[in-house]
Each structure stands twice: as structure tokens, then as C-alpha cells.
């Protein structure tokens, strides 16, 4: 499948403008301090400054497949002519999906959909609303030019040039971009675009990818993270300590490309109403509150434990060792009180006391690089953050604040210790622990 094509910035925006007739083209747009994926018109795209279209989005593109709120079912009823207290009710399920191009996301964003696919499409029940949009969407991803301080895709099996989940992956090179067609869907999108062949630029692309990989902080030793995080479950003091500052605002979950939770609510009446699905967050106390008043996760420590464990232990346990985190760092950047999931996972792993058999003892973890002092704040777009939870400091212009690209591609090998791609189970999910064995059905 893999073919390389070259496009100048003008050719790329021209192509997108052409796609906008016949597709919904979603691309990053600066809105105040936030960068969000929005439908863009052909005119906008034709005249767009390419750099503006390539900004790191502060909100994940999850909404391309899962709108924040959507109608699942509509109901309409008519009254019986004889007995008006009796109704005849008809239901409809408006499953709609426009042909869509999702442009300008990063490799972690594209991998996020692979994470969502498992619960939404690969279980006993399939989600037809998500499935229809997934089917109708072609994902055109930009390989990251360099890592941001909060990036950690290399901890969770990704790279800044990962192809997983993308239909086309494009990389900035001298004078323009090289598009690598990854899937047939991607091929269909470039058909007739008239892009030049770029087979001769393969080495330049490789070098750009290696440079980006080298700009990441090295991943710490994370073997057996699934078991180790699980073994922390009963260590309440640990989770209490890690969550002291948490405001339960949920920003971390709303901005996350892999958070899957939603609620279902009714609106209107039986005569004329609808059943809605809206994003929800496991960080709020009401999420698990039962009618009796009983809540299995009453404290914020309980909820953080669930969020972190879901991503690094429960989800991997359910889905063959894959993590439900792609290392995009949005939760790190957007937390109003600077809680950092990297720190929590690493601390959970380091302090774990369970014995992992059949392997040499884990070597001392590499130090995780500290976030730069002058940390760039990105406000959470579209998320209603309670007043007391809003970041006290005003949001700063945040978007294209990427560090200069690292120069030495040779450093790549040492930086990315090649964790497994999502397609096959990561090595970090061993099959040897008694706990994981006992839980297999």
C-alpha cells in the first residue's frame, strides 16, 4: 500500500479545499487559547496558512467520531382516537455519517481511535453511531516534527511518526510535505490529486522521523505496568497522596482521545422527545452514585485510581495488553492543578511490591524529565469547568509552542526503546503473573 507523494504547502491546501466539496473536512483551528478540530470550508482551506492548519490541537479529535452530545433515539407518539390516554409510539435511530476527512491530527490522535475501536466496535455489541462515522472518516495525520514537553507516546507503544490508525501520514520536508498512503481509504483520497511521486525523498522522511523520535524524553522502565498498577489498588495512602490537589473537574477526561465514557439521558416527552448520549467523566462523584446513595467511588482518590488503573491496568487486562492511553499529554497540560499521569504511573510502578516471576528484576527506572519551568498553559476548550476549578492564571497563547526540532537523528535509537505497536500485544504485558492468569476466563 505504502506509496510516497510530494505536495507543496499550496498543493496540500488546494487538495484539502477540493476535498471540502463532498467531505466534511475537520482541521485544527485556533480559538482563543485553544486549538480545536472544526469543519473548514473550501474557501478557508484554499487560503489557509499551512502552519495554522498544523497546530497541535489542545482538544482531541475524538468528537469526529463521538460528538459531545448526539441523539441516539427519537420518540414520537400519537394518541388513540378512542382513548386519548393510550399512545402509539414510534422510535427512530438517526445514524448519520457524512464523508469526513480528519486532517492534521498527530499520530497519538490517530492511535486514540484504535483504542476506542475495541470497546465501541470489537465487543459483543457494536456501536453503530461510532461505527458509521469511523467508516466514513479518512484520517490524514501529520508526523510530529518534534516532541512537546508533555508528550510520552513512546511510553505506550507509539512514536511521533506512528502509522497506526492513520490512512495517510504526512511529514514535513524541504519545500513541502511527503504523504505516505497507509490504507486503501487513504489511496482513494489522493486519487487524482496530481501529487508528484516522492520515492526519492524516503531518506529525508526517515531522517525527520528519527529526529522527532530523538526529541522525546526517553521512556522509563515500565515492564509489567499492568500488574504493578493493579497491585496498587488497595494502597489507599498512595492514591490519597497523588490526588490531594485534584478538583474533580474532569478536564483530563474530556480532552483525552481515549476516554470512552458517556451518559444517556432523555429529553422531551413520550409524545415528542429524544434519548441523548453525552460525554461523561469518571472523575465526577455522580458517575457511579447509585440511587440508594451508595457510591463505590466516593472519594477523588477512588476516582483517580480508577482512571489511571483503567488506562494502564484494566483496559490492558481486557484488551490483550494494550493501554488506553496514547501519551498525547493533554491531561498533563490541561490539568488546572498540574497533576501528571506520567508521574502517577511511574510512582505506582516504582513502589509496587508484587513479585513478577520468570524475569530478571526490573532495572532502575530512568528518571522522567521534569516539565520545563515555564510551562505553557492551555485552557480546556469547550469544557465547562466549575468556577473554582478554572485555572487561576490566564491562559497564554499556547498553540505552536513546540521546541525547536532536535538536530541529531542518530540519537533516535537510544530514545525510543521500540515498544510494541497497538497491533500486537506490548511486551510490557506479561502473561506470567498469577493475578492476570487467575483472571483469564
Amino acid at each position, binding site marked *: 500500500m505504502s506509496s510516497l507523494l510530494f505536495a507543496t504547502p499550496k498543493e496540500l491546501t488546494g487538495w484539502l479545499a477540493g476535498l471540502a466539496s463532498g467531505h466534511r473536512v475537520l482541521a485544527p483551528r485556533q480559538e482563543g487559547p485553544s486549538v480545536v478540530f472544526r469543519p473548514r470550508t473550501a474557501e478557508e482551506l484554499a487560503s489557509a496558512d499551512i502552519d495554522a492548519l498544523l497546530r497541535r490541537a489542545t482538544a482531541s479529535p475524538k468528537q469526529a467520531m463521538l460528538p459531545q452530545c448526539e441523539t441516539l433515539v427519537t420518540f414520537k407518539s400519537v394518541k388513540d382516537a378512542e382513548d386519548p390516554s393510550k399512545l402509539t409510539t414510534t422510535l427512530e435511530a438517526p445514524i448519520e455519517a457524512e464523508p469526513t476527512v480528519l486532517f492534521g491530527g498527530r499520530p497519538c490522535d490517530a492511535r486514540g481511535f484504535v483504542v476506542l475501536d475495541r470497546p465501541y466496535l470489537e*465487543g459483543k455489541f*457494536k456501536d453503530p453511531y461510532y*461505527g458509521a462515522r469511523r467508516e466514513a472518516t479518512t484520517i490524514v495525520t501529520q508526523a510530529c516534527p518534534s516532541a512537546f514537553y508533555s508528550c510520552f507516546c513512546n511510553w505506550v507503544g507509539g512514536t511521533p511518526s506512528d502509522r497506526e490508525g492513520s490512512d495517510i501520514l504526512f511529514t514535513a520536508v524541504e519545500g513541502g510535505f511527503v504523504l505516505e498512503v497507509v490504507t486503501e481509504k487513504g489511496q482513494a483520497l489522493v486519487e487524482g490529486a496530481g501529487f508528484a511521486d516522492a520515492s526519492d525523498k524516503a531518506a529525508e522522511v526517515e531522517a525527520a522521523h528519527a529526529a522527532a523520535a530523538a526529541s522525546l524524553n526517553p521512556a522509563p522502565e515500565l515492564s509489567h505496568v499492568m500488574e504493578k498498577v493493579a497491585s496498587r489498588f488497595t494502597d489507599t495512602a498512595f492514591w490519597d497522596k497523588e490526588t490531594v490537589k485534584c478538583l474533580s473537574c474532569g478536564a483530563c477526561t474530556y480532552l483525552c482521545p481515549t476516554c470512552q465514557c*458517556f451518559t444517556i439521558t432523555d429529553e422531551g416527552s413520550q409524545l415528542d422527545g429524544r434519548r441523548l448520549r453525552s460525554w461523561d467523566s469518571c472523575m465526577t462523584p455522580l458517575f457511579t452514585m447509585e440511587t440508594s446513595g451508595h457510591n463505590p467511588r466516593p472519594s477523588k482518590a477512588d476516582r483517580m485510581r480508577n482512571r489511571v488503573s483503567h488506562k494502564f491496568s484494566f483496559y490492558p487486562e481486557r484488551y490483550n495488553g494494550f493501554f488506553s492511553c496514547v501519551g498525547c499529554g493533554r491531561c498533563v497540560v490541561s490539568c488546572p492543578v498540574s497533576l501528571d499521569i506520567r508521574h502517577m504511573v511511574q510512582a505506582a510502578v516504582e513502589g509496587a511490591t508484587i513479585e513478577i516471576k520468570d524475569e530478571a528484576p526490573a532495572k532502575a527506572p530512568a528518571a522522567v524529565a521534569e516539565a520545563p519551568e515555564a510551562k505553557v498553559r492551555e485552557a480546556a476548550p469547550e469544557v465547562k469547568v466549575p468556577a473554582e476549578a478554572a485555572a487561576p492564571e490566564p491562559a497564554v497563547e499556547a498553540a505552536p509552542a513546540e521546541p525547536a526540532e532536535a538536530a541529531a537523528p542518530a540519537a533516535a535509537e537510544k530514545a525510543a526503546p521500540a515498544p510494541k505497536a497497538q497491533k500486537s500485544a506490548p511486551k510490557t504485558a506479561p502473561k506470567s503473573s498469577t493475578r492476570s492468569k487467575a483472571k483469564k476466563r
Partner: protein
Amino acid sequence: MSEHDCGCSKNPYLPEVATVLEVITESPTIKSFRVRFDNEEAWNSFTFQPGQVGQLSVFGVGESTFVINTPPSCKDYIQFSVMRAGEVTTAIHKLQPGDKVGVRAPLGNYFPYEQWKGKNIVFVGGGIGMAPIRTIMLHVMEHASEYGRLSLLYGARSPEDMAYKADLPGWLESDVLHTTLTIDREAPNWPHRVGMIPNVLKELAPSPDNTIAVLCGPPIMIKFTLAAFREMGFKDENIITTLERRMKCGIGICGRCNLGGKYVCLDGPVFSQAQLNELPPEM
């Protein structure tokens, strides 16, 4: 607009429209609703296993989870017994025969009765926990010759709180079921036992040999009844219970009802105590 084509055959969020056939007032807080799908084809092809649940909805108010408490052999209707609790259950309690509701079913797993053949079974139901017991118990009674001794211990706070009054005489007189009823405190004209379920259970002292214990009820009753069963020598793999968690989708996607890596809506609600021991202690 492109055609939906994700390979799935059925929209799991789209309920069947069903008609309430009959409403039975079981207790001051519990009513049973017998419903049947309006679409004949959907109704005729509907099957379920004892222990599976449904999402019952009042359109415009919302959905809630209830166990189908009729046995699968009942082809005329399915019954849900609903304890009035919050918004949806209050709306359900206002339903009258002829009203339309939504039903998404069957959801979840079921009691592993295939593995119980030839064994004795002790059913213990407390309060609304009698609903899941009812479906599996009636199913097993229909096939009583395939099992050993069947017994039921059903407890409620008071005689009024005891649901399924119409069934009780039959259960008490049944040749295949040994029934014990109990209430928490003395009440006039109560001919049966008085005492908390775990205590009465210890008095009955069922033998753990070749015996399965099935218990459903409020958390506090589960806790002490479980302890009583263990004390009597029952092994955790032979103690079966059902879990409750707040639910929405019922199909393992909305992320709400997880207990560790398991979803109660998909992998449950039926678990053996041995299985629960492997899950994180987050009740």
C-alpha cells in the same frame, strides 16, 4: 449521508416498544410489570437466559436496569419487578396497563445452571433480591428432576414487604422446593420464621456437600450471608451472587459499571464468590 455499514446487525441502543399488560402491586415499594414487545416478529424471536437483565425505559424520563424475573419458558410476557427508588423507577410505578415502554434485552450474563445438574441448590433472596432468584429458581423447578434438593430461604423486613405473594403458597406447598420464609421482626399472624436471613440460614444449616448457594439481596445481607455460608463449609466457587452498579449503556461501552477490568453489565451481573475474590475490592 452514507449508509451505515459497520457490520453489526442490530442497534443495541434502540429499544423495542413494548406494552404493559399487567401491573401487580407486590409491596408498598415494589410493583411488577408484565410487558410484551409490540413487534410480533421481535417478540417471537426473543429469547433470554435466567439472570439476564433488561433496560426498561419510560420515554422522556430514562432507562433503568432490572432483571427479567420470569423464567424463559414463559412466552406470553416478561416480568420486571421494580422497587421505587429515584426518577425512572418513580415514573415506572405510574405506568398502567396499555402504556408503552421501551425494552432493551437481554443484556448481561446468566446463572450457570448447566453446571449445577445433579447438585442441590440453596436459594437465598433478600428484599428485591428475590427478583433474580425468582427467574432462576422457577427455571430450575421446571427441570427439578435434573437437580438434587432445591430449597429457598426468602426474607423481607415485614410481611408487607414480601413480594410475590401470589407465588408464596405454591412455593410453600411445592413437592420440589423446600421453602422457608422469614421477616426481620415479629408481626401479628405471621406463621413463618422471624429473624435475619444469615441467622435463619445457620439454623437451617444446609450441607455444603454437592450444593450450590445462590444469594441475592442488599449488600449488607450479602455480606453476612456469605460469611454464614463460608462458616458452614461452602466453597467460594459454589457461592453465586449478582452485583449491582449504576448502569447506562448496559453493553460494556459507556464505561460506568466496571469493577476492575470487568463490566457488570457485560461480564455480570452473575458472579461466583471465587470470581469476585479476583476482582479489586471496590464495592
